[in-house]
C-alpha cells in the first residue's frame, strides 16, 4: 500500500469512527424528546451521552483536517463546492453543541423547550447533510478541468444524495435508540428498545434500497457484495437481539451496520474522491489531490504515535461511564 492509499484508508476510517461514535449521540439527540416523556426523562436521555458527545464530535474535525493536510485538492473543491450546505451543517452543529451546555442553565419550560428543539433539529440535520454530501461525491457533481465546482446549491440536492442522507439518518436513529436502551434503566430503556426493535428492520430495508441504487449508478449489477449484505443483515439482527433483551450485542450489531455502510461509501469511491459529472477525465482522485510524500510521511508518524493513545483514553472513558443512567438519579440530583 502506498502512503497516498494509506491516507485515503485512514480518512475513510476516521469518517467511519465519526459515524459510529457520533452516530449514536446524534440518534440520542433526535430521540430525547420522543423517548423521554417528561423533563427528567429527557435529561436522563441526554445524560447517557453527556460525557461522550464532545469527544465524538472531534472525529469530524479530524476528518476535515486530515483531508486538508493529506488531500488539499479534495478539501478545497469539496468544502468550497458545498459552501451553503456546510453553512447549514455548521449552524446545526452549533445549535446542537450549545444546547447540551445551556439547556439546564435556566429552569423555565420555554428555555428548555427551545434547546430541546435545537438539539433535535440539529441532530437530524447533521447526518442528513453529511449524508447528502457523501452521496453527491459518489453520484458526481459538475466539476471542471481545474478541479473547481461549477454547479450551484441546487445541484447538491439530487435524489441519490438525499437518499444517502436519509439512509444515514435512519441508521443513526436505530443506533441511538439501541444506545439509550443499553445505557438507561426502566421505562426509558424499554421505550428505546421498542423503538429500535421496530426501527431496525425499516432501516435495514432503506439501506438495502441504498445499496441497490448505488450499484445501479456504478453500473455493476444490483447484487450486493458481502460487506453490504452483512451491513443490512446486521440491522435485522439488531432488531432481533434487542427484542431478545441482549442490548450489548444489539449495539454491536448497529455499530457493524453503521461502520460497514460508511466504509462502503468510501470503497465505492476509491480511487476517486469526487466524481465529475462533466467529464470522467476531471474526476478528483487520490492521486491528483494528494499532498507530496514528505507531508504524508510526517503525518503518518504523528498518527502512529497519537492515534493509539487517543483510542486508549477514549476506550477508558467509555469504561468509566459504563453505568446506566436512571430517571430516578436525575430526579434525586435536581432535588425533585
Amino acid at each position, binding site marked *: 500500500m502506498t502512503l497516498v492509499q494509506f491516507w485515503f484508508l485512514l480518512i475513510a476510517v476516521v469518517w467511519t469512527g465519526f459515524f459510529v461514535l457520533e452516530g449514536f449521540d446524534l440518534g440520542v439527540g433526535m430521540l430525547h424528546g420522543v423517548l423521554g416523556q417528561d423533563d427528567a426523562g429527557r*435529561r436522563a436521555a*441526554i*445524560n447517557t451521552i*453527556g*460525557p*461522550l458527545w*464532545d*469527544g465524538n*464530535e*472531534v472525529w469530524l*474535525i479530524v476528518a*476535515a*483536517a*486530515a483531508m*486538508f*493536510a*493529506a*488531500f*488539499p485538492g479534495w*478539501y*478545497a*473543491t469539496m*468544502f*468550497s*463546492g458545498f*459552501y*451553503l450546505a*456546510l*453553512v447549514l451543517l*455548521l*449552524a446545526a*452543529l*452549533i445549535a446542537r*453543541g*450549545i444546547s*447540551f*451546555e*445551556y439547556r*439546564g*442553565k435556566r429552569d423555565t419550560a420555554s428555555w428548555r423547550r427551545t434547546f430541546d428543539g435545537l438539539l433535535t433539529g440539529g441532530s437530524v440535520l447533521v447526518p442528513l447533510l453529511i449524508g447528502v454530501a457523501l452521496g453527491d461525491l459518489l453520484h458526481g457533481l459538475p466539476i471542471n478541468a481545474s*478541479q*473547481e*465546482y*461549477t454547479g450551484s446549491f441546487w445541484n447538491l440536492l439530487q435524489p441519490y444524495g438525499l437518499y444517502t442522507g436519509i439512509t444515514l439518518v435512519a441508521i443513526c436513529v436505530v443506533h441511538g435508540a439501541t444506545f439509550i436502551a443499553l445505557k438507561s434503566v426502566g421505562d426509558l430503556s424499554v421505550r428505546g428498545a421498542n423503538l429500535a426493535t421496530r426501527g431496525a428492520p425499516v432501516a435495514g430495508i432503506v439501506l438495502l434500497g441504498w445499496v441497490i441504487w448505488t450499484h445501479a449508478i456504478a453500473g455493476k449489477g444490483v447484487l450486493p457484495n458481502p460487506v453490504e449484505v452483512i451491513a443490512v443483515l446486521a440491522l435485522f439482527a439488531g432488531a432481533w437481539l434487542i427484542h431478545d433483551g441482549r442490548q450489548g450485542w444489539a449495539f454491536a450489531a448497529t455499530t457493524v451496520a453503521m461502520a460497514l455502510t460508511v466504509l462502503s461509501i468510501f470503497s465505492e469511491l476509491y480511487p476517486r474522491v469526487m466524481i465529475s459529472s462533466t467529464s470522467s477525465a476531471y474526476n478528483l482522485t487520490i492521486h491528483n489531490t494528494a*499532498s507530496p510524500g*514528505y*507531508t504524508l510521511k*510526517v*503525518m503518518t508518524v*504523528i498518527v502512529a504515535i*497519537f492515534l493509539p493513545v*487517543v483510542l486508549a*483514553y*477514549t476506550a477508558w*472513558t467509555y469504561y*468509566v*461511564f459504563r*453505568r446506566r443512567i436512571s430517571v430516578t438519579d*436525575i430526579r434525586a*440530583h435536581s432535588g425533585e
Partner: protein
Amino acid sequence: MDKLDLARWQFAATSINHFFFVPVTIGLAFLTALLQTAWYRNGKPEYLRLVRFFGVLLVINIAVGVVTGLVQEFQFGMSWSAYSRLVGNIFGAPLAMEGLVAFFLESTFLGLWIFGWDKLPRGLHLATIWLVSAGSLLSALFILAANSWMQHPVGYKMVHGKPQLNDIWAVMTNPVFLWGYTHVVLDSIVTGCVVMLAVSAWQLRKGSASKEIFRHSARLSIGLLVPVLAVDMLVGSELGVIEGRYQPMKIAAAEAQWQTCQPCSFSMFQIGGGNNDHTPTQIIEIPHLLSLLATNSWNGKVVGLTPLQNQYSAKYGPGNYVPNVFVQYWAMRVMAYTASLVFLLGLWGLWLMWRRKSLANSRWFLFLATWFVIAPFLINTAGWLLTESGRQPWVVQGIMLTKNGVSPSVTTTDLWISVVGFGLIYTAIALLDAVLMVRYGRRELAPAPSEGTAEAGQQVRVPSVLY
C-alpha cells in the same frame, strides 16, 4: 462589497469572535486546575467550592469556543479554497495534528472532569482538569504554528511555483511561532486572571455571604496577573522586533512611519493619518522609543512604508503592498495602552494585598476590577488585528496575495447568505454566553457538597455535574 471583501469580513469577524472565548478557556482551565490542586493538597472545602464555581464559568465558555472553532476548521476550504489548495500540504498539517493531539485530549478529559467527580479517585480527577488545560494549550500551539507560517513561511521549497513542505522541524521552530505562541499563552492566562478577578471583585463588593472565600480567588488572580503580564509585555515587545525583521511593513505601519528614520521616535497619539494621509499630526513623541521597540537598539533604523513599497513593487510586481495604516497604528496602541492599565490595576491590587485586610474593603478597586473584565477582550482583538491586518495584502507573506486565495466557485450571493447567517448566530451565542457568564458569575457560591468536607487524602464522593 465584492466577494473578497465579504470573505475577509466573514473570516475576521468569526475569528475575532472565536478568540473572545479561547483565551478565557485557556486561562480559566489553568486557574481552575490550580484551585483544584490547592483543594487536593489542603482539603479545605472552600477551595472545592471555588473549583465548582469557576468550573461552571469554564464550561459555559468552552461550549462556545468549541462550536465557533468548528467554523474555523471548515472555512479555510469553504471561502479560501485557492489558498487551501496551494498550501494545504503545509498549513493543513499542524491543523490535523491539532485535532488529533489537542482536541481529542481537551474534549475527552473535559467530559471526564465534568461527569467524573464521583467516579474517579481524587488524584485521577485532578489529572483530568490538568489534561483539559494541556489540551487547550496544545491546541493553541498547533494553530499558532500554522498561523506563524503565514506570517513568515519557513521549511518549504518551491516546486513548479507551489510551496511544498520539506522541513516540519523548521515550521515548529519558526521564531515568529516560538515568540507568538508564548505571547498568546501568557496573554490567555492574563485573560483568565482578569475574568476571575472581576468575578471575585463583584462578589466582594456585593458583600456576598461567601466573601471570605472569594478573597482566595482574588488573591490568586492578582498574584498571578502581575508577573505573567510583566513577562507577557516583554515577550510581546520581542515579538514586535521579530515580526519587524520578516514583515517590516507591519511595524512601519504600526507607527505610520512613511519615511525611513534613524533613530526613530514613538508617538503616543496622532490626529489624522491613514493610507492617504502621510503627514498626520503626532502628539507627545518619545525619542528613540520606536527604535527600541522595533529593533532592540537605541539608534535602530526603521525603514519607512514608501521605500518598502518601492522595494516590494520591484520584487513582486506592481501593486499596493501597504497594510491599513490606520488599523495598524491604533491596534498597536489600544493593545499596549490597555495592557498597561491592566498592569497598573494589578499593581494596585498587589499593594492592597500587601496592606493585608484592605483588598476586600477598597470599593474603588473592586469597582474598577469588575469593569476591567472588558479589557482583555479589547487587548486580544487589537493584538490579532495588529498581526493579521499587518500581514495584508498577503495571505501568506511573499507567497500568495489574499485576493488570490478566495474560493473561485463561491459566489457573492453565497457569501452574503453566510455572512448574514453567521452574523445572526454569532451574535446570538455571544449574547447568550455573556448573559450566562454574568448570571453565573453573580451567583452565590454553592455550599460544599456534604461529603466534600472530608479531610485531605481521604476518598471523597463529590456528586457529578449533570446536564
